[in-house]
Structure formats: C-alpha cells, structure tokens
C-alpha cells in the first residue's frame, strides 16, 4: 500500500484579527410599525431592538463582506495573498452559485485562497470559526478568513408581525491562523433538520419561468424561542467545559443577537458573575444572522469593554435548528 503524505500542521490556532461593516442607512422602529400595527415600545419590549441598519442598492452581501474582510486583515496585520481559505457564512447571498466567498476573495486579492460559503444561517459564523480552527490545526490551511455577511432586508415580510422588525443587515469578519497558544476552544455544535419549518425561507429561490420571486423568511417564533431558551444554555455550558474554563474565566458573553429576551434568559440560566460583559448589539443592529456575533464583538472592542487576550464565549443558533458554540481569545 502506498502511504499518503499528511500536511504539516499548526499545533494551535486562534483569532488574529476582527473587522466589521455596518450599512449606512439606520432604520428606527417607527419606520416599520404602521404595516404591522405596532409601536416602538412594543418592539423594544418584545425584542430589545431600537433600530437596525438596512443595506442600500450598492451594499450587497459581497461588498459588505469585502469591507469587513479588509478591516479584519488590517487588524490582523495579514496581507490578502497570505489567506489560503475564505469561509463565508450567509443565507442571503443572491446566487446559489458562484459562492460569495469566491467573489470576496477576488475583491480583496486573496488569489491564493480556496473559497466556500457555509449555510448554517444564524449559526453560520460560529460554524465557520469551528471549521477554520480545524483547518489550521489539520494543515489544510494556514491562514483563514472567516466572514458572516447578510442582507436580510431583501427577504423580510414587512407585513409579518412576528419578524418584520427583527432583522437587519451587516457583515463581520475574523482572521484565524496559527498561534503560540490555543486561541479557539473546541466547537460544540449540532443541528436538527426535523424542525426545518421553524425558520425557513420560501418559496424556492429558483425562479426560472416565474415572473417574480417573492422569497421571504418565515419563523415560528414561539417554537424557536422555546428551543433557544431551553437548549442553548446547555450548549454554552458544554462549550465552557470543553475549553476547560468556568464562567468566571470569561470576559464577555457574545450570543447570536437573536432577541434580547433570549439573551436575557441565557444569561440568567448561565449565572455569569457581574464581571462578564453581555453583548447587546441587537439594540442598534437588529438580528443580523451570521453577521451578528462578529458585529457584536466589534462593538465590544470599539466601546473598550473587552481587550486583547480576553476570553469570550460565542454561540450561534438558528434555522436548521443548527447551533455552534466555542470559547475564543480576542486578538
């Protein structure tokens, strides 16, 4: 039998840099309330959202991802030609093919990179971080660009009281590469496709022969809320255990910014000490699916609430009933 070579591997992987892009147009609750016969107060009470941002015509999943990626590369002091894998998490890229990752690679000049999109909706960024960590330590890539980018405003049903106010657009990115100490804890992840109808975008996006596409996102809010508050706390605990740390070791908890009520419930369940900063970027960003964790991380850094070397607990969860969580050390 002929033996196959294995690649040279990095012993440890970690975050090297972070970046974000927020669309320019700010959309307050007041702009959305008439069509759903609601009020600013009702939306704040139900979700914690005060405003969100919607991308304009010239801001797409790929342009926003590109801006976030450039910021992350600068933060990491890594040049684009050193990136050898781009993993982009999204569910709102307009094209089933080619991937948004391939377009972003070209836009930033990552000519040596493999490129692939990940479809895990709101869990996408945490999935991509797990894949990037594994790729670096397996030697299939040396330096990975991980991006979450969403233009959800194009698939919102503005007459649906349950979801019209919830979502926003944006992008966030991280560079993951070899580090001297392990900077990403084990990823705890899973999915439950038997609940595919809980959050689903339909009708189908293949519109050949149809005059107009009307693909919107629908969500069974109570089902998703119940799943999140009853199961995700345990996933967080498993991610802490897997990393070998306790809630006291964590500087910030950065859950997917799904709904402030879910965040509050998880915080209560996990019993973090006062010293732990809770990411609440949803107030001004809404739920940006795969972009929400890196956007929230960016906010914490901009506000000076976290510093280099701090440990954060991240968890993404959403459609597919997919979830992923890990502890990471900030660059």
């Amino acid at each position, binding site marked *: 039998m002929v033996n196959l070579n294995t690649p040279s591997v990095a012993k440890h992987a970690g975050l090297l840099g972070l970046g974000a892009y927020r669309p320019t147009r700010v959309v307050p609750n007041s702009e959305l309330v008439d069509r759903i016969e609601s009020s600013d107060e009702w939306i704040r*009470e139900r979700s914690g959202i005060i405003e969100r941002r919607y991308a304009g015509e010239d801001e797409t999943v790929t342009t926003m991802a590109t801006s976030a990626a450039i910021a992350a590369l600068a933060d990491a002091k890594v040049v684009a030609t050193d990136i050898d894998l781009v993993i982009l998490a999204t569910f709102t890229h307009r094209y089933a093919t080619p991937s948004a990752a391939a377009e972003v690679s070209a836009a930033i000049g990552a000519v040596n990179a493999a490129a692939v999109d990940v479809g895990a909706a709101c869990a996408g960024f945490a999935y991509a971080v797990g894949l990037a960590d594994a790729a670096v330590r397996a030697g299939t890539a040396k330096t990975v660009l991980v991006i979450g980018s969403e233009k959800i405003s194009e698939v919102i049903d503005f007459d649906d009281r349950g979801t019209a106010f919830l979502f926003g657009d944006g992008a966030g990115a991280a560079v993951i590469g070899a580090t001297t100490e392990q900077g990403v804890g084990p990823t705890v992840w899973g999915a439950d496709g038997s609940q595919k109808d809980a959050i689903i975008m339909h009708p189908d996006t293949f519109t050949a022969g149809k005059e107009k596409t009307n693909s919107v996102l629908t969500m*069974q809010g*109570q089902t998703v809320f*119940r799943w999140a*508050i*009853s199961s995700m706390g345990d996933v967080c605990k498993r991610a802490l255990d897997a990393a070998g740390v306790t809630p006291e070791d964590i500087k910030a908890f950065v859950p997917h910014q799904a709904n402030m009520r879910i965040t509050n*419930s998880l915080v209560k369940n996990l019993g973090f000490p006062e010293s732990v900063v809770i990411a609440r970027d949803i107030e001004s960003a809404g739920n940006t699916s795969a972009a929400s964790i890196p956007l929230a991380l960016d906010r914490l850094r901009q506000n000076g609430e976290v510093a280099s070397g701090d440990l954060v607990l991240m968890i993404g969860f959403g459609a597919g009933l997919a979830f992923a969580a890990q502890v990471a050390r900030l660059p």
Partner: protein
Amino acid sequence: MSQEDVLAGLASIVNEVAGIPAESVQMEKSFVDDLDVDSLSMVEVVMLCEERFGVTIPDSEVKNLNTVADAVNYITANKQ
C-alpha cells in the same frame, strides 16, 4: 392536585414571568388581552408549567391556551 391548586400555581408562574399580580390571574382572563402576557412570555409560562406540574404542553397546544381557564383545564386533564 385540585383545580384551585393548579390556578394558584399558574398565578404564581405568571407573576414570576410577567410581573403580573397573582390575584389578577383569574379563570376568565385572557393571557394576551387581559394580562398582557405576550407570546414569548407565554412560552416561558408553559415551560415552567411543564416543570412544576409534570405536564407536557407541545407547541401545537400553546396556541389553544387563550384564557387562564384553558391552561388550568389542560394542566388538570393532562398532568401525571
């Protein structure tokens, strides 16, 4: 456990979740219209009911629980 006990337990749960005085939780009251328990709080109420009454309330049943009486009757009929 009598219906009165279930009502008292439910009233305490509604108070805990939504901050509504337990004495306001009466049989004929609607969760949404009278008690201002929104759909997400209702999920939390249901989860605590499952825990404390040893009853299973599937998502498909939650939408049928419009009034306090609906919930009390369901719990009384289904608890182990």
